[in-house]
C-alpha cells in the first residue's frame, strides 16, 4: 500500500469507529462498557496507524494499550469494586462542558484548517521497523533512556501509592 495515500473510504470508516467508540467511553453508564468501548477505540486507532502506514506503531498500540493498559484499567475497576456509577453520571457542568468541547473542536479546526501548510503532501515516509529501531537507538536514544526512567518512576510510584498503609515489604 502506498504510504500516506489517503483513502477516503477507509478513513471515514475508521474515523467513525474511533469516534463512536470514544463517545462510548465517555457516555456509557456502566464503567465496564466504557472500558470495553475504550479497548475498541484503541483498536480503531491501531487500524488508523496501519492506514497511515505506521505498522510498528499499530502493533505497539495493540500490545501496550489493548494488551496492557486496558487490563490495568480493568484491574483498577475491579479493585475499586465500583462497577457502576451511582447517582449522576455526569457533573452538572457537563451542560457547559459539552458546548465547550464542541467549541474547542470547532475553533481549533477552523484555525488549523484555515492554515494552508505549504509542505504538505504525500511524502510517503515508509519507515521500516528496522529503520525505526535504528532511529530509536541512535538519534532518539536520549528520550528512550528518559522514558525508561519514567517507567521506573511510574512503577515505584504505583507501588508506593497502592501499598497499604503501614505495609512492610
Amino acid at each position, binding site marked *: 500500500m502506498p504510504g500516506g495515500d489517503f483513502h477516503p473510504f477507509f478513513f471515514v470508516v475508521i474515523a467513525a469507529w474511533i469516534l463512536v467508540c470514544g463517545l462510548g467511553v465517555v457516555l456509557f453508564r456502566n464503567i465496564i462498557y466504557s472500558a470495553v468501548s475504550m479497548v475498541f477505540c484503541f483498536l480503531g486507532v491501531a487500524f488508523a496507524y496501519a492506514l497511515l502506514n505506521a505498522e510498528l506503531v499499530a502493533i505497539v498500540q495493540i500490545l501496550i494499550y489493548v494488551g496492557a493498559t486496558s487490563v490495568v484499567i480493568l484491574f483498577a475497576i475491579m479493585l475499586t469494586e465500583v462497577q457502576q456509577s451511582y447517582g449522576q453520571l455526569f457533573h452538572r457542568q457537563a451542560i457547559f462542558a459539552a458546548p465547550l468541547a464542541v467549541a474547542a473542536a470547532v475553533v481549533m479546526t477552523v484555525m*488549523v484548517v484555515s492554515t494552508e501548510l505549504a509542505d504538505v503532501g504525500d511524502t510517503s515516509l515508509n519507515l521500516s521497523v528496522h529503520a525505526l529501531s535504528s532511529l530509536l537507538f541512535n538519534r532518539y536514544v536520549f528520550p528512550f533512556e528518559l522514558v525508561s*526512567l519514567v517507567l521506573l518512576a511510574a512503577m515505584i510510584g504505583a507501588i508506593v*501509592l497502592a501499598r497499604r498503609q503501614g505495609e512492610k515489604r
Partner: protein
Amino acid sequence: MSGANNDVMVILPGVVVAATALVVFMADTLVGGRKWVLPWIAAAGLIVAAGVATAQWIDVGAIGSVWDFVSGSGSGLFGGGTAESGFASMVALDKFAYYCTLLFCVIGVLTIMLSDAYMKKRRDAMGEFYGLLLLVITGMIGMAISIDVIALFVAFELMSLPTYVLAGFIRGDERSGEAAIKYFINGAFSSAILLFGLALLYAATGQTNYASIAAGLNNLGADAQSGLVIVALVLVAVGFGFKIAAVPFHWWAPDVYEGAPTPVTAFMSVGIKAGAFVGFLKLFTVAVISAPEVWTAILTILAVLTMIVGNALALPQRNLKRMLAYSSIAHAGYILLGLIAVGAGNVSVGASGERVLDTSGSSAVLFYLGAYAFMNIGAFGILVWIRNRRAFRYTLDEVAGLARSMPWTAIAMTLFMLSLTGIPPLIGFWGKLYLFTAIVNAGMTWLAVLAVIMSAVSAYYYLRVVWYMYFREAPGVAPAGAGAAEAGAVQAGAVEAGATVAGAPVTVGAAGALETGAGAAAAEATLVADDAGPAVGSAAAVVIASLGVLVLGLYPSPLISAAQGALRVLLGG
C-alpha cells in the same frame, strides 16, 4: 571530546542524578534499618552532579582573582566558552543548562535537608521518596538540556509523574490523596494539551528540533502567525502554564500545595516551577522565537491575569501554605514578565540573518528563579521547621506571638516575607528590579506598573505574617503593653512562665536576638508532639536559605553574573 564520549559528557550531570536515584532505590533494599544513609546518598549525588556541572562550566584557567570570581567580572566563570550538543542535537549542554542544573541541584539538596524530620517518621518509604525526588530532578535537568520537543516532552513527563506520587505521599491522609488526584488529573489533562500543542507545532514545521523549528517557522514567513501556530502555541502555553501555575491554569496549585507534604510543596513551588520555566523559556526563546508576537500576546494575557488573581486570592487566605501557594502563582506572573520581555524586546538580526535576542529578559527569569528558590524554600522551610517542633496546622493564628517563642525563626520568616515582597536589600528586590528593567527595556512599562501595584498588594499579606508573629501575642500569653505596662509585672510573669516550662525544649533560636518575654513556651510545651527530635537538616536548610536571601541580597553580583552568563551562549538559538 568527541563521539559517544561527547554525548555522555553532555548529559553527565543528569546521568549522575539518575544513577544516584537508582543507587538510592537499590540501597533502600540493602541497608535494612540504616535508612538514614539514603538522604546522604541522595544529597551526595546531587552535590556530585552540581560539582560535575560546575567543573564543566567553569573555565578554570580564566578565573583570575577570587574577587573577580565573586563579583563576576572575570571571564572565567561565565564568559566565553562553547556549548556542546549531543545525541544528534537532542540535547545541548550550554551555559543555560549549567546554570539550571546547578540551581536544580541546590533546590534538591535543600529539599532533602528540609525533609529530614518528615521522613524520619516515614522511614520505610525513604528510598522511594528520595529516589523519586532525584528522578524529578533528572527530569528537570532534562528540560534544561533538551533542544528537541520529543526530549522535552519526555523530560516533562519524567518531571511530572513522580511529583504526582510525591504529592500523595502521605498515604491515608485524605488531603494528601486529594492533592495527588487533583494534581494528577489536571496535570495529565494539561500535558495532553501540551502534547497536542507540540504536535501542532510539529505539523506547522515538520520538525522537532528547536533549531529546525525556528528555521521552519522562519520559512513560514507570515504564516508564522497563522491559526495553526496560534493554536499550537496556546496549547503549549497551557501545558507549561499549568506547571508554573499561571492563571487560568493555576487551579490545582493552592489545593495541591496545601495537601501535599510541606517539603514536597516547597520543592514543587520552586523546583517544578523552575523546571517548567526553564523548559518554557528555552522552547519559546529558541524554537518559537520566530513568532514572538503570538506568544508575547499569549503570555501578556497570562501574566496580567496571574499577577492580579494570584495576589487577590492570596489576600483572604489564612492558611499559610495556601497563602504561599497563591503568592507563588503571583510570582509566576512576575517571572512571566521576563519571558514577555524577550518576546517584546528588541530582536535584532544577526550577521547571518538569524534573529538575535536581547537576553536581559531571559537572564532576569533565571535570576528570579534562583532568588525565588532561596526565599520560597526558606518560607516553606520555616513552616516545616515549626511543624517539626509542634502541632501546627499552618494557620496564621498559630504563628501569632512566634517572635517570643521562636525569635530566630520569626526573624528568618520575616526575612523571607520581606524578600518575597521585594524589600531591599534582600534578594527578592534584585529579582524584581531585574525583571522590571527587562520589561521596561522591552517597552512594556505598563506591565511593570501593574506588577509593582500588585507587589504593593502582596506586601499586605506578606507583612500580615510578620504582624502576626511580632505584633500579636500567642493565645494564653498576657499581652505586655508597650508603654504603660509595668515592667516589673511583665518581668515577674515572664520568669514565672519560664519556670513552669522547665524541660520544654527551646529552639536554637530561642537563645535569641530579641529580649523575649519567655511566654509562649508554656503554651508550646503541651503541643510539642510527635515530630520531636532535632531536625538539624530543616534548620540548616532554613539557615542556608536565609543566608542566601541576605548575602545575595547585599551582594547579588555573583548570581546576576551567572544568570547573565547563562544566556551568553545558548545552543540552538
